[in-house]
């Protein structure tokens, strides 16, 4: 048990805890902040693995950009609080499936790599990484940059108000009214189901 291992365990616990809190938190803003904690932990794990540049990118892109983007997203939509608003009725199924998957994965990992000897990661230079990107991976790199551009243009197109609107908030239609043919009875049923499910969960 080297100090490296101990550090890894520490950051792994931080990362995992942050992740768990992200998906269980009842407050959306808290969830976003826990996500930031978890992402930072992952960045530290990258550092321990001597992947400095990836850790840097992790910090800049995820902590800097994506977390903020999420916070903006939360602000621009309503951010309700509480289990009813945040958790769907698929929670038990999700719990079962993801636990089972974790079990299967752990068994597979241990069976496949359990005998792999412990090594100390060597530091890799950013220069080598740059050489690799711009020699071996230059075509995928260009492709992915095009994809990023396309995605951003697409995001702008999707998010922008449709032309012709004067800027007034459009009359929004709540979803249940938008679908009159579903029938009110069914909506009632579903609400009842929802309530019953949550009652059981508590």
């Amino acid at each position: 048990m080297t100090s490296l291992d101990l550090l890894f365990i520490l950051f792994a616990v931080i990362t995992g805890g942050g992740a768990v809190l992200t998906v269980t938190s009842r407050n959306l803003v808290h969830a976003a902040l826990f996500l930031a904690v978890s992402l930072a932990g992952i960045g530290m794990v990258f550092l321990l693995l001597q992947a400095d540049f990836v850790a840097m990118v992790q910090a800049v892109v995820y902590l800097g950009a994506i977390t903020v983007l999420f916070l903006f997203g939360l602000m621009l939509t309503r951010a309700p609080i509480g289990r009813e608003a945040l958790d769907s009725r698929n929670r038990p199924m999700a719990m079962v499936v993801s636990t089972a998957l974790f079990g299967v994965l752990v068994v597979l990992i241990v069976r496949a790599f359990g005998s792999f000897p412990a090594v100390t990661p060597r530091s890799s230079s950013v220069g080598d990484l740059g050489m690799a990107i711009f020699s071996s991976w230059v075509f995928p790199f260009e492709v992915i940059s095009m994809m990023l551009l396309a995605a951003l243009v697409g995001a702008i197109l999707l998010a922008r108000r449709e032309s012709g609107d004067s800027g007034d908030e459009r009359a929004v239609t709540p979803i249940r009214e938008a679908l009159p043919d579903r029938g009110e009875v069914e909506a009632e049923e579903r609400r009842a189901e929802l309530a019953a499910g949550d009652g059981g969960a508590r």
Partner: protein
Amino acid sequence: MEVLNYAWLIVALPFVAAGVIAAFGRLMPLKGAEVGISAIAIAWVVAVMIGWQTFVNGPVEAVEQVFWSIPLGGNILIEFGQYVDGLTAMMLVLVTTVSFMVQLYSREYMHGEDRFTYFFAMLSLFTFSMLVLVVAPNTLQALVGWELVGVCSYLLIGYYWLEKTNSDAANKAFLTTKFGDIGLVVGIIVLSVGVSAHTDNVFSIRETTELAAAGMLSQPTIVLGCLLIFLGAMAKSGQMPLHVWLPDAMAGPTPVSALIHAATMVTAGVFLIARLYPVFAQSLAVMNTMAIVGTITLFFAGFVAIVQDDIKKVLAYSTISQLGYMVAALGVGGYTAGIFHLFTHGFFKALLFLGSGSLIHAVHSNNMSDMGGMRKYMPTTFVTFVIGSLALAGFPLFAGFFSKDEVLVSAQIWANNGRFTGSLVFWLGLAGAMVTTFYMGRSVFLIFFGTHRGVAHTPEDVEAEAEAGTLDDEAEMEDLDQAAHDADGADLTQEEVVAAGHDDDHAPDHGGHHLPHESGWQILTALVVLAALSFPVGLMGGFLWDEVGGSVERNFETWTATHLLEEVSYPFLADYHRVDLEELHGGGEGEGHAEEGAGDHADEGAGEGEAAGLAGTDHTTLAAGSDLVLATEAEGAEGGVENRVLHGAPEFHLNVFLLALGGFLLAVGGAWMIYGRSRPMRDPLLHMGGFTTLLENKYYFDDIGYRGVVVPVRDWLAPAASWSSNVILDGIVKNTGGAVKRLADVTYFTIDQKVIDGGINGGAFSAAWISSKLKRLQSGDVQRYAGAMLAGVIVLVVVFAAAR
């Protein structure tokens, strides 16, 4: 052998043509048709050269080349290349010939359509897709071609997408085949996992089949993989539960139907099975599944065709039925029989579809009830259509006769090997052949004989005329209605109806009322060429091949056989011995067989022994051609176990021939009785089902009763007898009639309404009920879908981990 290296040219030409048409087609004088037709013509020439090369060389080693490979990491490569052997060459010839004819035909048929250029681009792309599949050296390329075929068929079936039903039909075709594609993808993966234990090139068809033939693949891998691939083939080749898209696919233009049904789409499944046949042959379960599914399909699809009025629907169900034959033949070990039927069927079904297109073109209606008497107006179409029908019905010396007989012979041999599916395929196949003959006879009689039935008055035409302003259509319609009433009441013929309709026709020569006329030269060329081809393609695989001048050593069987197929054996037939081989290959070892047959298979029954003996003595020379190919097997035969894959040389089985011919004559006779002799105003089959014969009997019964009972009584006894005797006799007569009526009622209400209708309705209702429950699965809850998918992944991981 050099020409085999240029198979890629055949694939590339339609692709280039599609691109050129799409880019520049609108600027060209013929709107792009010239590019498509000339490209496919060149491809056709190359295909014929390759076909000839492989044909004269007999079963050769396949030429396998890889042009482009993409590493996926690990040892896995996606390779694009070509794999040319006899089977490939056969398919190349079939696909390019049919596609060539269809494009030539479409040039005239689709003339003036809005999206003519698009249509030709899509035809070329469709052909290209199928060719990609045909030359595929590995299952991944086959999958690419397979999916491209699906997409192109979707686009072509939905060609007239402005009508909702047509786009629905396209969706239906796409989704149904897509359902099977899931099975195909998973099956390919399962097989590749099995192969990966032995070789790096996990998707290679050659490696897979060789390993399977050597017995290196585990039985569960083979069963699971093959059944899943078969699911894909079922959807693509319209086998019974998944055939639903095929009749709807008639929504596309007729040339597309011809292309789909003859060469490109539906044959893909059968071709893939044939391509992987050494793998399929390793498992009895897989073979039985194929045989049973094929038999159900061939038998029941044929019956549906009987009651269709739409000529294209008749042909569609006929296609399903014939595909059933192919799959059933493959399922009873008849490799050669299955693909031979695929080959011949491709030609005559294309011919039939193009012929029906010619008719539809002329009368502007799909319905046979709108045709009639077309023989006079369209003599060339008539002759070619009849040739196609005879070929489909299996009249001797026509293509379908040889191939269908070979299917039946294979089934019989399989049955003699102690497999019940053999008998099943044989007898139901025979019955199916009769049904085929019957509905084709019905179509021919309804379309070409009798009198023309007022085709010019289809709603479209009336509309067109109304738009053209040449006709007071209301008056015309009233006239027609009135005439129709007259016809009902006074038993006028249809001609008079039409004539009555014409009486008040003030415009002497407007367009809508001309009688149907023969199509132009491009349509007729395609028809005549395909009709002419219907003969040699049947002969080359038939037992008469050398009689008509063909080389005895070069026939269809040697063409499409491969070395591998001769080495592969049925593991599950291990306990059946030498005699089976000679059953399979008959002829050459005929005398030997007769002895052995007497010894080992005395229980086979006298009829079979007689027929086999007959084949042995009379047709030694006929089957001698197979000796070369089969020599290796004969040598191996001394070792003991004889269980090779059935790709026997063509041989003559008198009993099969007589049964098939008898069935044919019976069915044609039936069709003639109902539709040919006198023209019923209403199609009796549509209204009475199986009651036609009963009606005839009833008629005779009344007749006999009248002459035998009523007349003597009235003439001799009545003058002298008192009224009581009249009462008694009347009572007898009345009660007899009452009993007959009650019997008929019971038959109708109990058997027809309750049992038959009830069964069908019950099936439909239970399907509706089950689907009303099952649809809840489609909850729209994406998270639940994700959960279900992952649960599936977990189960698969656990299963595979446990299996290791």
